[in-house]
Each structure stands twice: as structure tokens, then as C-alpha cells.
């Protein structure tokens, strides 16, 4: 049984069909990217899988558990955590406090309301572990608003990772990063625990080819191609529609 199974989901906004009969099967530990031009429906797809939008038809299952019409918080509790394309962070908290909150979400103490939070050392330890993993240790006790943009992107991923998910959805983790920041992110993403399944939406081909072993190409809400990076790179339809003739690594594409 695959770990994440998306079957035949569709979504229309009015007359506009954004996702049309989309299927996806992810095995445990798989690194999978969904790519496609702007407006291809990637973000809508992500929002459906993570519970923010209900699909019109189709089912989504995590290890056989139907999560199709669950709330975002229920989906996360079922083991699928996501990050956001736009930084969605706690600006006035420190990195430590943010990660603690993330770790606390899946612990039993979250509704404890009379003992000081700082007593729960286990949470702090786990938060610290995540910070080290995401190379945020030097800024661990700094307020999030004082971080650099690249560090905020690292934290964005770290927050999702701190939920200890089985499946991690990253919505354009490298959006808006500089070349150096991107290289660091790619390195961090490749060192994620092997048993975490990764689903990535990304525009930047450095990131996609650097991190993922499976790629699904989306255009106008439909799957255009799917397979290994090599197969996708060679696919004539993809070359024409998306990668451009040169298949440059900076493959940003105009709106569809």
C-alpha cells in the first residue's frame, strides 16, 4: 500500500477547472516533485491534499485512512504536515519558541494550562534537534522577525518537520531565495530523514533535480508527464511546454 494515495481528484472554481482527475501514489521515503507553469494548479492541489480546500470529487488517503474532507489540523494529526510558499511564521516569537509550539502540537501537554511551559524539557530538546537539522542553531533564541529571508525559509520547512510527519508537503521552499540560500536549502532537503516522504511543489529546477527522484508535470490541471528526472527531461511535450528548448536549470516559465 502506498503511503499517500490521491485518486481521481478534481476541483473547479466556477467554470474554471483547476485540477482535473488527478492521481498520485507516493511510497514511503519517496522524493516527489510536482512542477508546472504558474496557474497549472499546483497550489490548489497542495491545498486539497493538506485539507485547506475540499476537492469536488475523488479521495485522498494516508496509509489507507481517508482524509478527503478533513480539516487542516486533522490532516496534520494524521501525519501530513505542510509548509507555505509565503512565510507563515510567528514573527514575534523566537525560533526556539516557534519550534517548541510545533513540537508541542503532537504532544499530550498541549492543553496543560497550569504548569510552566519551560519545564517540559523534552519539547525543548526536540525543538533544538530540528534547529540543528535546519542549521538554525546560531539563531535559536532570536526573534523570527530578525532572521534573514533564507533563514525564514529554513524555519518554514523546520516548522513542518517539527510536526514529525510521515509525509511532508513543501510548497515552493525556495521561493524568493538567492542562489546561495537555495544551495543551502537543497543541501538541507537532501539530508531530511529517509523515512519521511517528501512532496514538493517547486519552480526552481536546481531544487527539483537536486532533491527529487520522481517528478510529475502538471499543466492546466492535468498530468502532462510523470517519471524520473531523466524521463521527464527527455519528454518532448514537457520540453515544449515547460522546460524550454535549452532545458535551463533556471527554468522559470511565463504564465500559462
Amino acid at each position, binding site marked *: 500500500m502506498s503511503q499517500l494515495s490521491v485518486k481521481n481528484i478534481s476541483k473547479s472554481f466556477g467554470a474554471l477547472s483547476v485540477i482535473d482527475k488527478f492521481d498520485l501514489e507516493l511510497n514511503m521515503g519517496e522524493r516527489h516533485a510536482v512542477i508546472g507553469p504558474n496557474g497549472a494548479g499546483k497550489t490548489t492541489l497542495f491545498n486539497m491534499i493538506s485539507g485547506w480546500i475540499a476537492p469536488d470529487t475523488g479521495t485522498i488517503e494516508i496509509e489507507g485512512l481517508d482524509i478527503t474532507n478533513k480539516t487542516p489540523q486533522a490532516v496534520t494529526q494524521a501525519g501530513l504536515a*505542510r509548509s507555505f510558499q509565503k512565510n*507563515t511564521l510567528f514573527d514575534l516569537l523566537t525560533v526556539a519558541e516557534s519550534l517548541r509550539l510545533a513540537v508541542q*502540537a503532537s504532544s499530550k501537554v498541549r492543553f496543560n494550562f497550569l504548569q510552566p511551559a519551560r519545564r517540559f524539557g523534552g519539547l525543548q530538546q526536540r525543538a533544538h534537534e530540528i534547529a540543528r537539522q535546519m542549521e538554525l542553531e546560531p539563531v535559536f533564541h532570536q526573534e523570527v522577525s530578525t532572521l534573514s529571508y533564507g533563514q525564514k525559509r529554513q524555519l518554514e520547512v523546520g516548522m513542518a518537520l517539527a510536526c514529525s510527519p510521515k509525509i511532508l508537503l513543501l510548497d515552493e521552499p525556495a521561493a524568493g531565495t538567492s542562489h546561495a540560500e537555495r544551495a543551502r536549502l537543497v543541501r538541507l532537503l537532501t539530508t531530511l530523514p529517509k523515512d519521511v516522504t517528501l512532496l514538493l511543489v517547486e519552480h526552481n529546477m536546481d531544487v527539483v533535480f537536486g532533491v527529487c527522484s520522481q517528478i510529475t508535470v502538471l499543466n492546466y490541471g492535468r498530468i502532462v508527464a510523470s517519471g524520473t528526472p531523466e524521463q521527464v527531461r527527455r519528454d518532448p511535450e514537457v520540453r515544449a511546454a515547460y522546460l524550454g528548448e535549452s532545458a535551463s536549470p533556471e527554468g522559470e516559465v511565463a504564465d500559462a
Partner: protein
Amino acid sequence: MEHSQEDSGQGKNGSNVSNHDPMQPRAAREHKTFLYIASAGLLFLIAIPFFVGEYYVSLASEILIFAILTSGMNLLLGYTGLVSLGHAAFMGVGAYATAVGSSLLGYPVWFVMLASIFVSLLIAYGIGLLSVRTKAVQFLLITLAFGQMFHAIAEKTRYTGGDDGMTNIPRIDLSFLGLDVDHDRVFYFFVLICFVIALVILRLVVDSPFGRVLVGIRENEKRMLALGYSTFPYKALAFGISGMLAGLAGSLWVQHSFFVNPHIMTWQMSGEALLMVIIGGSKAFFGPLLGAAFYVLAKDFLSDITEAYLMFFGLLFVLVVAFFNGGIAGFISRVFNKFKSPSGKDGQ
């Protein structure tokens, strides 16, 4: 919530006091400061009745009672980011429950007080369950509507004297300790004890994992949902605790003034309490206390001079919001930090 993404610009809180020592957790450092301030403040509050006249002792009681109300409100406003315009209703529930229980039904006041607190907790929690599903303006309006409803009920109820309210409400009986609470100094210490208990509970709450969740909701509720928190029960319980403290304030208020009328439940009352919180500083634990003190003293001073004291408050409020981000508490901590490190070397 939307703007927390856009606003994340470096400058906004760049001068924030909280990044001195990168190797130290902020919470631990702040807790230390909190203990210093709390102990010094408590000594000061204990000393007051020994140095000022009856009149000012009575004003001090008033300040502490309002501080219980406003500190409770701040659990919603400052910690959770919810602006309620209906908290006077819970103060009124506590006040009327105490008045009815002691003066009409003849139960002992200590028992009536506990019952009032419990009743306000239940009612506030119930209303919280209905209100916290909404956000921002809708939340403000729904709490306002509930508040007006309670006010109307109090006005129309003959049993509690309608618009005139009730008089001759007794204070708690402490004669078994040989104390006469009709003396304002004695009553002040009783209020002080209630105040300390209320603020200890509140501090425990904001310091707990539950309290951290509330702050997370304030900072970014979308992220909290994505992390797997069902934010709704947290907000409802915060609303309940906040209403419970308002109820305690109401119960003390009727004992302080020996009477109650529906005015205590008007939305103006809620509004004044909000002003106290914001003038005092909603980001600081003791901000609402400072705000209540400032408000009560300034009102006392200004109303001697002019009937239009609210006009000055309006002006003051505008000034605080426009120039004193963080209210009185924010101003004090800025001055203090400047004093502590004149070279500015601790800006991270």
C-alpha cells in the same frame, strides 16, 4: 493575521529588547525579570494603606478591582489577539450574582463570591463557544451584541431593581479574624489578596503550554492550524478564564461600592476597560494593571476639574496609539533598556 506575513520586515521590532543574549532562552530571562517586578510591586501594594488616607486607599481598591478585569481581558487581547467588547457583561454577571445571592437570598458572601466566579466562568465559556468561531470585526460585534443583551436583561429585571439596581450589598464577613471589612483599609487587603490570586492564576496560564498556544494563535492562526492545533477550544477556554476574572472583579466591585446597577454592564464599560488595557500596554503582563491605575487616578484628577474628562481620555488614547507603541509598560521597558545599556551594545 494576514499582515503578519507582510509585516515581517526587520525594522518593525528591530529595537526589541528580547535579543540580548543569544545563548539564553527568552522565556527564562523574562521570567526572572517578572519575579523581580512582581515582588517589588507586591511590596509597594502592601505598603500603600500605611502611607495614604482613606480616600486613596479606596481608590487603590478600585484600581486593583479594575486591574483584575483588565488583566483578564488581556488574556484575550494581548495574548490571543481577540478584541472583546462584551466583557462588562461578565463583570455584571459576577456583580449581580453576588448582589442577588447575598442581599436577596441571604447566603454568606464568601460562598456567593465563589458561586459568582463559577457562574461567570460557565456563562463566559458558553458565550466563548459561540463567539470565537468568528474573527476580528465579527468577533467584536458578536461580543458587543451579547454584552448589550445582558445589559437589557439587567435593566428589565424587576427582581434586581431594574434600572435602579440594588443597594446595601454586604461585604464579605471577616469578623472571625477580628477584622471589620467596612474599614476601607481592611477591605483593600482583602481585594489585594483576591488580586494576587487572580494574577497568579493568570500568570500560570500564560506561562503554560496552553498559554503558548494562545500566543501562537495571536501571531498566526493559519500556521497553528497547519501545525495540527484545533484552535477553537483554546480560544473558547481563554474566553472563559477571561470572563471568570471579569466576574471576580464584578463581585468585588459590588462589595466595594455597596451597590450595583445595569451601568456596570454597558458597552461603554467594556470600552473603558479596553482603553485601560491599551493605555497600560497589552504586550506586558502588568500593562493592564498600569492602565487601570493610570485610568482611575487620571479620572479622579480630571473629573475634579472638568466633566468632560472622557474627552481628555480620547485624546490620550490617540496619543498612546499613535506614539507609544506598547502603552505605558512599553514606554517604561524602553526607557529601562536604554538606561541599562546606554551604548546600545545589547541590540543584537
